[in-house]
């Protein structure tokens, strides 16, 4: 049927054009805040890959639907039915197997990325104990035995956060959007999170798990500073 082939050809062209346009859009404009940790760059790559795949499927399905609504709309006075096509085994198998391959591929890539962002680094980690409470954050640097109400980290040194919430407190969640990773602080247990900040700057630590009246205001300043400034800050805390 040449007519059927013509429709498919037009659809293919439209989908390709739209996918290219969407890909351009996603690459040209970043929808994310700046990445400020080595984890963030891994995660951002994963985001780009998924946006590309999602862009293709979005274009394919939406354009196919809109095209059908326009090209195959019922003409006035036409009361006949469409062709009685019940299905097509090859096509149905394809749209099971291709998405299957894609999601398995994504799973493998995602698993490797998870390995990468949570692996223990070779160099020594800076350990920071984080205690969450309604509605504040406490930070402890056991290496020097100092505490602080704001978070400061030296740039390019891997950090291991050990998070907990007080026993009679509630669940909170540790999130610096520029670091891209998040971890709940749970009463009664200790959770861990690895971040290697790699861009100097002032960021905000936010509580991401609903924790009551002050939830929106449960923020703390999170500053990534050069190593020397960090040591000076630690010294000032010791006094």
């Amino acid at each position, binding site marked *: 049927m040449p007519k059927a082939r013509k429709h498919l050809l037009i659809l293919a062209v439209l989908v390709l054009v739209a996918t290219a346009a969407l890909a351009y859009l996603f690459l040209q404009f970043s929808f994310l805040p700046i990445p400020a940790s080595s984890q963030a760059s891994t995660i951002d790559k994963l985001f780009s890959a998924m946006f590309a795949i999602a862009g293709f499927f979005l274009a394919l399905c939406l354009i196919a639907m809109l095209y059908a609504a326009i090209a195959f709309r019922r003409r006035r006075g036409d009361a006949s039915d469409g062709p*009685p096509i019940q299905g097509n085994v090859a096509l149905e198998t394809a749209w099971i197997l291709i998405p299957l391959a894609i999601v398995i591929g994504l799973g493998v890539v995602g698993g490797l990325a998870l390995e990468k962002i949570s692996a223990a680094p070779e160099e020594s980690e800076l350990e920071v104990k984080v205690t969450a409470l309604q509605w504040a954050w406490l930070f402890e640097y056991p290496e020097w035995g100092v505490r602080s109400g704001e978070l400061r980290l030296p740039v390019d040194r891997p950090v291991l956060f050990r998070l907990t919430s007080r026993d009679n407190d509630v669940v909170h969640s540790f999130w610096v959007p520029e670091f*891209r990773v998040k971890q709940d602080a749970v009463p009664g247990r200790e959770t861990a999170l690895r971040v290697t900040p790699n861009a100097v700057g002032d960021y905000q630590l936010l509580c991401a798990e609903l924790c009551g009246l002050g939830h929106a205001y449960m923020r703390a300043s999170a500053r990534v500073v050069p190593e020397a400034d960090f040591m000076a800050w630690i010294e000032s805390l010791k006094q």
Partner: protein
Amino acid sequence: MRKAIAVVLSLGLVRGMLVGMAGAGAGMGVTVLLRAALGLSAWNPGPVVAIGTITGVLAYLAGLGAFSYWIRWALVAEPSKEGERHRYGWTRYLCVDINHKVIGIQYMATSILVIMVAGALALIFRIELSTPGRTIMGPGLYNRFMSLHGISMVAATLIGVSGLMNYLLPLMIGARDMAFPRLNALSYWLIPPAVVLLLTSQAAGGFDTGWTAYPPLSIKAPLGMQLMLTAFYLVGLSSILGGINFLTTIFKLRAPGMSFFRMPIFVWATLATALLQIVFTQFIGMVLIMLLLERLLGLGFFDPAREGNVLLFQHFFWFYSHPAVYIFVLPGLGVISEIVPVFSRKPLFGYKAVAISTLGIAVGGTMVWGHHMFAAGMEPYLRIPIMMTTLLVAVPTGVKIFSWLATMWMGKLKLDTPLLFAMTSIAVFLVGGLTGIPLAIVATDLDLTDTYWVVGHFHHTIFGGFVFPLMAAIYYWFPKVTGKFLNERLGKLHWGIMTVGFFTSYLPYFWLGLNGMRRRVYDYDPGLQPMHLVATVGGFMIGLGFLLLLSNLLVSAWRGARAPANPWHAQTLEWQVTSPPPEDNFPLPPQVVGSPYSYGVPGSVHALMPPGGAGEDGGKEAT
């Protein structure tokens, strides 16, 4: 005057509520006296209200008459069915009635009512969110409204899918009613007290935990929390009983000739939904009771100081609440599968694959609960397996979407309101599905979880899988239910405003989520304000859409155009009887002989109607 009072008192709902209030009062009073007699402090709101709730609900059900038949059954050999099937007119909708069509309409009306209330709440706090800092309310009220909106919408959705399935299932399989009509009535009548409890919870301090009710926050929450937990429990109980009824009906009451692969996809969806309902709702019921016990009696399930574990709640909660998402959307996807072939005038493309994908989504969806907890400190070895299972659910979902598109391709699309809404559903659900992929993958989820990305994602899936299909279903089946058409021009306006409004409201959520907007916060970074303002405007457009729907429903029910038995020339069984359907659906059982969607095949039918059955000639005969 006296007559009017008699009529009002004869309404089961009124009687039930009055007796229920008396029962609650008596229960609370006895508890207070007992506590005083035992030397405890007489007024301790927790246990007193708990007992009052139980006695109140039982008294309400008894006053309503939900148990009357069973009590007679226990006492006499041949219980009379007095008062069960002789009531006509509007009053039967406010009484215990065992006809599945009445119960279906009761469910739908309740659902739309609750959606309206919860939606109004959403609009109120969308106004609050249109500027950073305080706009019209403080953070306490914001948290309460946000939580009530969440749980009410969950309840409304559960009620709504029950309504759809109740009305359509027996008609679609050629049965005269559900397998257990009285149990069916009981399932519905558990809902009104749940709604009342949710509303009264606001008078008792409300609850500020979101719909998830995570402890320890929910342990510390005020008394309103307890009322919310009981309400949620009642909705769950109704859901379980409904599920048992649906399954039995599908297995035992199909018309002769209706093999499993001749069932409409909506029936497959009901089957899958009911399986999820009876298995998984038990877990939420249990964990809600655990939470109540911990609040009331000081048990230590979730308190780390007493060997409890906060994560136990989260595991059980999501072990239900993820499958619950499929309970919400599978019937809606079934509705789309019904509407697309009829308005494309083509058979459903790949019927068997679509039918099996319905079960595939349900079965696959049982093993994915942990993706809500990737950042929660969950057992780390579960992360990768759950990521894989979650991604795999995308495959059967994709099968459905591709099949709908292939059905429309080369068809003769009749662009009436039902199809327009179905198309919006497909688009919205597609965006919901695609934005779910980064949430399934652990590394990206660690960034996105608990942000507006998640909020945007699930509003897309629920609107695409429930709300828009519900709209499509209303426009599609309203002529069947009432015998009158909805106004088509108003319908198209409603469709346009809701579609544009939805995307205006919820597409910004993805950008917000990526840029540091946490969910459930009252205040945010001023840089995010423009998008919040856009979202608020979109929200009001959705609200306007609902008002248009409501006016269309009312006006058309009053003076809509007469609808014939089969206005859309559909082949499924419900269209082969008069509009509205006869009291007993099918006076004689139809004989099913073929596929429910064989459009375009000359002379093919889904079922042969017995002589004397109405509407045999495909709807030419107006009734």
